[in-house]
């Protein structure tokens, strides 16, 4: 196991300790290993968001958790425990077996991720989750980026920043570090662009369905109380 992965588990264990039972924290680490293998900050944000949603952790705590997570991930911070020596022990074999499997991650880690300050406003969280939902439900993933790149270069549709953001997203579809710090208007214009792209690929009826589903999922997030996903529309 690489150090960074071990550290992510430890940080997860520590961060969720005040809110989750031991069993729940084990489950959280399993989710981390299974679904959040990329090392970018956005991946951690998405992970924290998911764990909080699944285990009902309050919104106010969640914002603090993002910061805490980021802080503990810094190398100079000394961690006092190793989760593998505690409750996770019973899952140790299973986890070790998983770690032994070759990881065929198609995504490269963006080194800039670790330097991005996670100014995680509610609209950023909603945006990232929304885009992940849309992307997950889409069958023709590569077609989406091809269309988005073309649309973002179209002067009527996009601006230079838009094209940059699309390229960064296309470079690593599960990494949304580039979205952190962008204002609501910019994110909304990206949502516009994605909708246009979906209409091109799927047609308006299926694009609407895809958006409906993603919005419905986003509305379950506690952040939706602070920032309704509809505000992107």
């Amino acid at each position: 196991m690489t150090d960074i992965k071990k550290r992510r588990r430890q940080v997860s264990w520590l961060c969720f300790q005040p809110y989750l039972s031991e069993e729940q924290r084990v489950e959280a680490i399993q989710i981390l290993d299974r679904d959040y293998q990329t090392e970018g900050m956005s991946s951690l944000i998405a992970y924290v968001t998911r764990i909080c949603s699944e285990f009902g952790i309050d919104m106010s705590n969640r914002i603090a958790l993002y910061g805490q997570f980021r802080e503990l991930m810094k190398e100079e911070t000394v961690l006092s425990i190793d989760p593998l020596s505690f409750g996770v022990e019973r899952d140790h074999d299973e986890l070790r077996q998983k770690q032994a499997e070759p990881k065929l991650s198609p995504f490269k880690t963006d080194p800039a991720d670790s330097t991005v300050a996670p100014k995680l406003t509610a609209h950023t969280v909603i945006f990232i989750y929304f885009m992940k939902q849309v992307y997950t439900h889409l069958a023709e993933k590569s077609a989406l980026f091809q269309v988005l790149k073309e649309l973002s270069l179209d002067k009527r549709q996009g601006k230079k920043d838009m094209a940059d953001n699309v390229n960064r997203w296309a470079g690593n579809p599960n990494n949304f570090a580039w979205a952190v710090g962008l204002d609501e208007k910019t994110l909304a214009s990206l949502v516009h662009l994605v909708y246009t792209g979906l209409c091109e690929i799927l047609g308006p009826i299926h694009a609407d369905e895809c958006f409906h589903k993603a919005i419905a999922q986003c509305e379950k997030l506690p952040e939706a109380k602070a920032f309704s996903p509809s505000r992107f529309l």
Partner: protein
Amino acid sequence: MSDLQLIWVAMCVVLVFFMQAGFAFLEAGAARAKNSVNVLMKNYMDMCVGGLIFWAVGFGLMFGDNTTGWMGIDHFFPQRFTTVEAVKLAYQTMFAATAATIVSGAVAERMHFNAYFIFSALVTGIIYPVFGSWAWNEKGWLTKLGFIDFAGSTVVHSIGAWCALAGVMALGPRLGRYSRQGETRAIPGHNLPLVALGGFILWMGWFGFNGGSISTLEKNNLGLVLLNTHLGGCAGGVGALFFMAVRKQPVLMSATVNGSIAGLVSITAGAAYFSPFSSILVGFAGGIFYLLGVNLLDRLQLDDVVGAIAVHGFGGVWGTLAVALFPQGAFSYSTLFVQLTGVIVAFVWAFPMAFLFFKLLDAWLGVRASTLHEQRGLDYSEHFEIGYPEFQKRLDSNDN
């Protein structure tokens, strides 16, 4: 005008007014649920703004003293009338609103309401009455050429359709309507029963539309006008159905309804002059021309939501030419030439003017709704009203 005819024309005012409800239902039903309020509002405001503008300006331009043959120059903001004049004004106001409302269906689901509102006023205030003064004013230059358009296949329907064509071209298609491979994607309307109801109401109103256009009860056979109108509508529906069946296409209800309306549009130019048999042929061909028109427009990627251009434009052109092709007396090339001139002039006047107005409105206000307003639906984004709130909520919750 005899008292009997006056009462009949007054009744026709009501019938033609009710056509607006037919247009509203047909267009709203053919649009998606999220745009239904927007479509209804456009139709409703066509009547409201059309009534005011046509009274203020349109009537004077169309039926005022036309010394040059190009447009009337008096009777603006009219205040005093005889009974006959008042009924005529009311009747013509309904026609003006009909011309304007043809546009609303074609540009549905993607046009800003405020821009449409202004455009509708320009249609009833300038585009429609100026052409009307050429063709229906007794001193109009087309009238003097011998152009025949009994109740408005060209004057009302084609003018509306060419304005709609300009709108469709200026706006562009709805998002995703055409794939990159050039395929046309179906975007089904939300309520086909409304489409059928709209078709029935329009058909009923058409008896007033054609029936009220008689100059005198004696000169034009009212019974024949009503019969021809009905036969034209029947044959249009059958023609569309037949054409779909022959081409082994699904026999669509919406296309059949539109086919019958295309038949009614076709019969309008010559309802007082055709024989019943000619009316059937004209209506039947009108239904087929409608479907050919829809195919052509789709091939050109011109997204007309309700098929208004094919129904009113193609049907209008065919009906106007049919007056020369199915004459009461001997066929005459000169009559055909005059009819063709009227058809071409209508396009040359209405289409560029409408396109110019659309472009000016686009530069001033923007005519196209934003991408996500289109996604969310114009009911919410333009009016803050949802046509079917409970249904919408249920739909959302089912997605979870």
